[in-house]
């Protein structure tokens, strides 16, 4: 056996079965790997997707892998924003994953694991992105997908989920209401709700973001990595990823981790500023960043610990700052992010202004979801001139604008 499970609080070991919490203390379980050996030179020759890190993922047989080609997404230098902020800003562009969000990483692992468990159907509870990703992977695996979401997620996300032919159940209420229902489905009906029932495996997929950043910076790490937080699982997984590469001797330092939340749902930021890891849940999240609107973050305590351990911080951005950051990213760097991506850039800007991120630092922002999944925000106030297909009308429509356009002769 290459790996087993272990209780995060009391260290009780478990066989790598479909279990998520400790029988003794009910704390979450984590995957622990035994004797991992990875050589940089060998790794660099492998296929450019997340499955190049197979030894560090909790799948027993390569035959079980459900591969949509996720991962090894570009790490782009954001030249213009870097210059204006006085830092070296990199964008880990997970908007270009197969279903347009980072969730293809954890869903890829979870659905592969479901195949390994012999499941004929998978379920998930989701603010939209995970649902699309689980649906797509289930299609590829030839099994059924049941996704539970809050009723109010973006239309675009429903469109995407419907295209993959998943069974969608929309719940009246918040993400947490949907989560409680899904937890009951796992407990009472025995469903494999991948982010609940097989969560120890699921979360492992996200750490490949950390591995890729190391490789893409030629085995260096940035000074800061800024991560959007909902449940906190992504941030903790990224921390684990960097630690694993550090312990394997592949990198020589760890980045400082920053958790970014939307002000309308920022229980982690609030706890961080109160100086505690005890989270006060938010009953009714209120933000345009719907994908990260989780009021009762399951891994909140652990995400704050990761931030403290790496001398980082938690910070929030309000809806206006998030939309501004989305526009900045799209108009200056050619990357169209959904609010969860905007929030990392907005928080980075704020922390540079506050001096927490020193000028000259290198910063990697995780851009975890594609803007096409949340279109309303940028379409607000958008009304293009509508003209006859006539050259004079065209000239009139752009008159007084951009000289560059007329630079023909």
């Amino acid at each position, binding site marked *: 056996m290459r790996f087993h499970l272990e209780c995060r609080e009391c260290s009780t070991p478990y066989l790598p079965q479909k279990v998520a919490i400790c029988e003794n203390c009910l704390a979450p379980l984590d995957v622990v790997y035994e004797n991992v050996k990875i050589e940089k030179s060998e790794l660099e020759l492998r296929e450019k997707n997340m499955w190049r890190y197979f030894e560090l993922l909790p799948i027993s047989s390569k035959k079980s892998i459900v591969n949509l080609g996720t991962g090894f997404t570009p790490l782009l230098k954001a030249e213009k924003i870097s210059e204006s902020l006085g830092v070296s800003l990199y964008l880990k562009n997970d908007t270009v994953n197969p279903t347009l969000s980072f969730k293809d990483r954890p869903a890829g692992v979870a659905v592969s694991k479901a195949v390994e468990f012999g499941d004929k159907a998978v379920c998930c509870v989701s603010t939209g992105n995970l649902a699309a990703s689980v649906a797509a992977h289930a299609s590829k695996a030839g099994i059924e997908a049941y996704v539970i979401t809050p009723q109010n997620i973006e239309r675009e996300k429903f469109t995407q989920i419907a295209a993959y032919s998943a069974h969608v159940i929309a719940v009246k209420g918040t993400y947490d209401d949907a989560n409680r229902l899904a937890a009951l489905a796992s407990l009472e009906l025995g469903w494999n709700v991948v982010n609940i029932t097989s969560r120890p495996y699921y979360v492992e997929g996200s750490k490949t973001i950390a591995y890729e950043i190391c490789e893409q910076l030629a085995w260096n790490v940035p000074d800061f990595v800024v991560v959007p937080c909902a449940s906190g699982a992504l941030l903790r997984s990224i921390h684990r990823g960097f630690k694993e590469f550090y312990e394997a001797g592949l990198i020589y330092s760890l980045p400082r981790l920053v958790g970014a939340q939307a002000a309308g749902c920022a229980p982690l930021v609030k706890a961080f500023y109160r100086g505690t890891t005890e989270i006060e849940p938010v009953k009714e999240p209120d933000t345009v960043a719907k994908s990260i609107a989780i009021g*009762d973050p399951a891994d909140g305590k652990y995400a704050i610990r990761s931030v403290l351990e790496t001398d980082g911080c938690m910070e929030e951005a309000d809806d206006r700052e998030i939309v501004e950051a989305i526009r900045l990213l799209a108009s200056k760097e050619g990357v169209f992010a959904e609010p969860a991506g905007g929030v990392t850039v907005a928080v980075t800007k704020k922390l540079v202004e506050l001096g927490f991120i020193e000028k000259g630092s290198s910063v990697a922002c995780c851009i975890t979801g594609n803007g096409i999944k949340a279109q309303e925000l940028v379409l607000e106030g958008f009304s293009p001139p509508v003209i006859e297909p006539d050259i004079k009308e065209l000239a009139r429509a752009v008159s007084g604008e951009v000289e560059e356009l007329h630079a023909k002769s």
Partner: protein
Amino acid sequence: MPKVKLYGHIARYSSPELTVASRNVRELLEDLCKLSGSRLGELILDSQGKLREFIRIYVNQTDIRYLAGLETELSSDDVVTIMPALAGG
């Protein structure tokens, strides 16, 4: 009388569904322990009588942290759900 439903490992120490004559959640937990033994109590409350981190209690559909916590009052047709805090997101 309020109905209680227990799920997952918590249900190991009790019958999964019972009816109790308790006036609030704290009293309900005490009554449960009297019925089902102290192991159940230890799983739910810490030595200071605080709700443990990985337990969630709902009165009908609402988390008691949004109500009056352990002091949340119960009426006769309430359904109380006690379950492990199963992570999602």
